[in-house]
């Protein structure tokens, strides 16, 4: 018995180390100067500095060949704007659609639902070239609206599939009972169906936010520097005079903070939402 527990503890420690070490290292790097980072052998003892963070926030980067302007904070703002708007739009479109898929039987229903999921399978690179041409023709290139529209490819399938599962699990009898009581179809949807699918909607929304936030390729091709989110903005640290590892690390830390905070705050809902009502009760 004791050996059993010892082995389990050892395995857990290994797994934790494996997953958390990179994050730990990046946080440490963000408080080091470039010279300390590149020193061999690497050491955990150093004098921490806030120079990387101040450079990011003030927008000026001191390099060997002069001062560079960084638009990191603007990129952060773009990320927040794009992710939030994409998720909101995806929820407005996706939740009623998920309800329709769950409650109504119509021809090709399953096929349509599967097609929407298949958007997640396809690599974005597949559609990017033709898409960028279309976007230019439509005048959507380098616009927030264009990006938000494209981000639906990321958010909508997730919301459809998770929320549909939730609606399917909720017994339709509850909505029937509400309508028999005398309430209209719309009230049954808003007062009964949506609250009961709440955890699923929250989980799907959170996951979509995280995926939208992490997206790189769409923003890289379809937007210019002005509209770029944080993922693309990190490229700016690869300068002519070398890679500014310290700033990259600080940028990474700042950019994972929002999503990490959200996930930690809502972790209970995330787990609940992802288990899709596996327990009958």
């Amino acid at each position: 018995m004791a050996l059993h527990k010892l082995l389990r503890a050892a395995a857990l420690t290994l797994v934790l180390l494996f997953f958390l070490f990179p994050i730990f290292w990046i946080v440490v790097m963000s408080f080091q100067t470039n010279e300390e980072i590149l020193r061999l052998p690497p050491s955990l003892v150093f004098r921490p500095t806030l120079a990387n963070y101040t450079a990011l926030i003030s927008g000026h980067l001191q390099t060997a060949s002069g001062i560079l302007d960084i638009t990191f904070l603007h990129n952060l703002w773009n990320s927040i704007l794009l992710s939030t708007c994409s998720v909101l739009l995806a929820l407005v479109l996706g939740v009623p659609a998920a309800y329709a898929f769950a409650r109504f039987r119509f021809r090709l229903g399953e096929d349509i639902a599967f097609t929407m999921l298949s958007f997640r399978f396809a690599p974005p690179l597949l559609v990017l070239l033709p898409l960028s041409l279309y976007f230019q023709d439509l005048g959507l290139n380098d616009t927030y609206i264009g990006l938000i529209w494209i981000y639906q490819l990321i958010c909508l399938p997730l919301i459809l599939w998770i929320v549909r599962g939730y609606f399917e699990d909720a017994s339709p009898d509850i909505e029937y009972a509400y309508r028999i009581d005398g309430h209209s179809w719309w009230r049954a949807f808003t007062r009964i169906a949506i609250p009961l699918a709440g955890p699923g909607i929250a989980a799907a929304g959170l996951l979509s936010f995280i995926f939208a936030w992490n997206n790189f390729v769409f923003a890289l091709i379809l937007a210019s520097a002005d509209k770029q989110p944080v993922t693309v903005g990190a490229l700016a640290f690869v300068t002519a005079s070398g890679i500014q590892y310290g700033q990259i690390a600080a940028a990474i830390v700042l950019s994972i903070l929002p999503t990490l905070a959200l996930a930690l705050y809502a972790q209970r809902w995330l787990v609940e939402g992802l288990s899709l009502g596996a327990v009958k009760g």
Partner: protein
Amino acid sequence: MTGLEISAIHARFGRHEVLRGVDLAVAPGETLVLFGPSGAGKTVLLRAIAGLEPGALGQVVIDGQDVSARGPEARNIGMAFQNFALYPHMSARDNIASPLVARGLPADEIATRVVEIAQLLRIGHVLSHPPRALSNGQKQRTALARALVGRPRVLLLDDPLRNVDAKLRYEMRLELPRLLRESQAATLYVTQDYREAMALGDRVAVLRAGRIEQCDASETVYDWPATAAVARLFGDPPVNLLACRPVADPAGLRAEAAGFRLVLDASAEAAGKACLLGLRPETLSLAAAGPDAARLEVIATTPLHERLVVLLRAGDGTEIVASLLGAAPAPGAHVHVAADAAAALLFDAASGARIPARRVMAGIAA
């Protein structure tokens, strides 16, 4: 014309016709039990009456008004579901108040009526609890309260006692008839338990494969089932159906099967046809040896509520179930069993229809 009237209700799911033309009428204050095996279409019929089956055809008339084109919210119906269908994110009080809130009644009137119905159903002390904190019996009473509070003209109860434990179920069987009568609504009550059907219903409509096979007072359905299928469904232990070919007899028809020999008061037109002799288990009794009694081997005895259900086997291997009062015969023993000819039933083997009594031929209904 008051109460509920439905005609020519059809419903189909894909290629499968679930309801094939159902007509029923229920008067205010009357309880019509909708009885049938699972898959017969009972729940679909209730949903069609409530307006929850968009694909259903036919006419639904409540208190003289044709509501077939209206949505469920406009039909003034109360409904109770098998799985209660309470709103999990609301308290019991809000659950019950829902129909009154939908109607826009003033808050104090809502509060009074909710408390009134809750006390009638003895759940006044749990009104502030959410459904998950209630026992099954309390959930079921809350669902009933919600159905009754709006004083609907039509009540649809879909097997509401199914998920309630046996003791509570029996209690509700005693309380429900009075409650339903006082509500003055036309009630349609679905169940698969024939005893519940007989206890609660003024009339019983037997639904089988999408059609009403018989709609009569419950005693009539039990004593004079329209078909062999109805006879088998309506009774526990189920009726014994034995193949026979009756011959004409001065007193009616003589039927022999599995060792039983009975003279039945049945129409002579069935003589020589392939028939099924229906013997209800409680009409069989231990008897002395004789030409009319069957000699059967006892396979097992299983007590059932003060009666003894005995599984017997005839010489030709036919299994017979008898429901006896008194001492148990030992397994393996051979006993003589007599059947009550007056209670015996005869059905046409091909169509399943019951062969009527002889007196029908003379113009007297039976």
